[in-house]
């Protein structure tokens, strides 16, 4: 069974006009994949990530992640599911400004009930791995955009999720920082076998993915494997 399964998923946003964000989408992603959802703005990439991330619900269709059909799961259980199985990286970092780097990393494991010494040990190991240990007590406002996004990826990884969803993670970064971030994501994917699904419309980033899911106007128009 695939780690992520979408069967006939559709989502329409109804504000002043109806916008078909996704239409009858079928998709399966296996554990350990390093996949990019690509397409122009408005193609449905973010909606796809939100639905898989269980922070939005489809109008029709079924989404199954690690065997759980999230489309019929109550909100409180979904929160628990996200806590235990998913990691999120947002386009604009979204670290908690009142917490230090270390505390931001500890946030999710603390919710999971991981004891503090264990949380700190894991966070220090990851920070050391990306050469950021000396920044552990800094607040997000004291970091560069690249550093913040790397912390955001570490925050997503630290709780050891099954799947990390990253919405345009390099959009606010320069090419050097974007490269560093992708290096880190690739390494974590390889070493920890964490499944990564990220959205992008940056051709340079697309080249690093091992699978490309192409979307346009909410429809799947291509699904190809590629050598990185």
């Amino acid at each position, binding site marked *: 069974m695939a780690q992520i399964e979408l069967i006939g998923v559709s989502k329409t946003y109804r504000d002043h006009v109806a916008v078909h964000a996704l239409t009858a989408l079928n998709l399966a992603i296996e554990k350990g994949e390093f996949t990019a959802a690509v397409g122009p703005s408005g193609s449905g990439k973010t909606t796809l990530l*939100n639905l898989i*991330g269980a*922070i*939005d619900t489809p109008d029709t269709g079924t989404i199954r992640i690690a065997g759980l059909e999230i489309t019929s799961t109550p*909100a*409180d259980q979904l*929160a*628990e599911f*996200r*806590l*235990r199985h*998913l990691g*999120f990286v*947002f386009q604009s970092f*979204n670290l*908690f*400004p*009142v*917490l230090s780097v270390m*505390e931001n990393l*500890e*946030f*999710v494991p*603390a*919710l*999971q009930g991981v004891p503090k010494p264990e949380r700190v040990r894991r966070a220090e190991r990851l920070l050391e791995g990306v050469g950021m240990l000396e920044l552990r007590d800094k607040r997000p406002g004291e970091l560069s955009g690249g550093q913040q996004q790397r912390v955001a990826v570490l*925050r997503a990884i630290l709780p050891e999720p099954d799947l990390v969803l990253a919405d345009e993670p390099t959009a606010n970064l320069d090419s050097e920082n974007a490269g560093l971030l992708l290096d880190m994501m690739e390494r974590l994917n390889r070493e920890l076998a964490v499944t990564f699904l990220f959205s992008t419309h940056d051709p340079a980033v697309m080249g690093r993915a091992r699978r490309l899911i192409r979307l346009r106007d909410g429809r799947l128009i291509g699904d190809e494997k590629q050598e990185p």
Partner: protein
Amino acid sequence: MLFWQMAWRNVWRYRRRSLLTVLTIALGLAFTILMRGIGDGFHEQMVDNSVRAQIGHIEIHRSGYQHDPALLKMLPDVQLLERIVSRTPRLRGFSFRVLGDGLASTAENSAGVSIVGIAPQAERSVTAIDRAIITGRFLDDGMSRPVLIGERLSQSLGARLNDKVVLMVQAADGSMGAQLFRVAGIFRSGSPELDRGVVYLLRKDAQSLFSIAGGLTEAALLLDSSHSVAEAQQFLTTRLSGQPVEVLPWYVVEPFLRQFIELDDAFFYIIVLILFIVISVGILNTVMMSVFERVREFGVMMALGTKPRQVVRLVVQEAAVLAVLGAALGALLGSASTIGFAYTGINLSSYAAGASALGITTTVIHPELTSRNLIFSDLSVVVVVLLVAFYPAIKAAGLKPVEAIRHI
């Protein structure tokens, strides 16, 4: 612990707004503590004036006397009573008296009066009537048939110092008793009721007048404070359970005073309620703004797995930080101002004439700081703030993560 850290730091993200909110809570609370302190002090002084004027903190009569005062309802086994009364906890003094009604007459006029037969030394330990003498002197066992009359009574009778006054009563045996007395002193107690309608005489003279040799009507006890009444009443009620007597606290003897205090308390609570509503609106505004400014943050928290109830907890904890800081500062300011005014007193003598008409003789109020006041005020404000915070907290918890994250 992480949530408390976040709550604490979130509060100080908006330093000026939070400080203003803490100050609002603190000033509201300080005002409440001071007003309650003034009220408590005023009430305590009213009670003290009243008990020191005549009634004492506790009165003991023969059963049924309070409901239907009659001369024949005299105290049983006075020696036993005296022995038990003298062991009452928190006791400062006690006086056994003879009470009755009669007619006081002079050559010029006459007036219906309450007659109180006292033992001078014992009476000094309970009431302040000896210090209220403005002309003449207090009663003395060595005097021959002396009486003390109030200033107003002296005016209405036309009786001056050393003048003769005839007291006429119906004696216990049904006969009419009339005896001649001489005015030994004139008092001004400040209580219109006492000054115009009470005559004090020696206890033995009263027993003779009423033909009740050795008989006594009531025991009045003065305690160290009105807060000791319950303990003393409990002691006496237990020890005198086999005796046909009633042990009455001051508020049963003077129900008007108690009703006045309760009414005054009711006004105070209405003011506090209005004040708390104003504070609540301020808190609600602060917490709402704090929530609306962090919608995206709440969205991220929920996307990462924070449950709605944990979001509620965080917002309420932030309000709790404001409430506790405000309560601590308010308690400090309220206590300091109450203690300060307790030391200097609040002079209300310019309103004394109006107050006196109501029987209120207190002109300088010394506020009282009690632990009950502090705990009640502090807890009330904290509970109000926490309750108010629930509305924005529930709003925050009800956000949809996907919409909240997109919030600008």
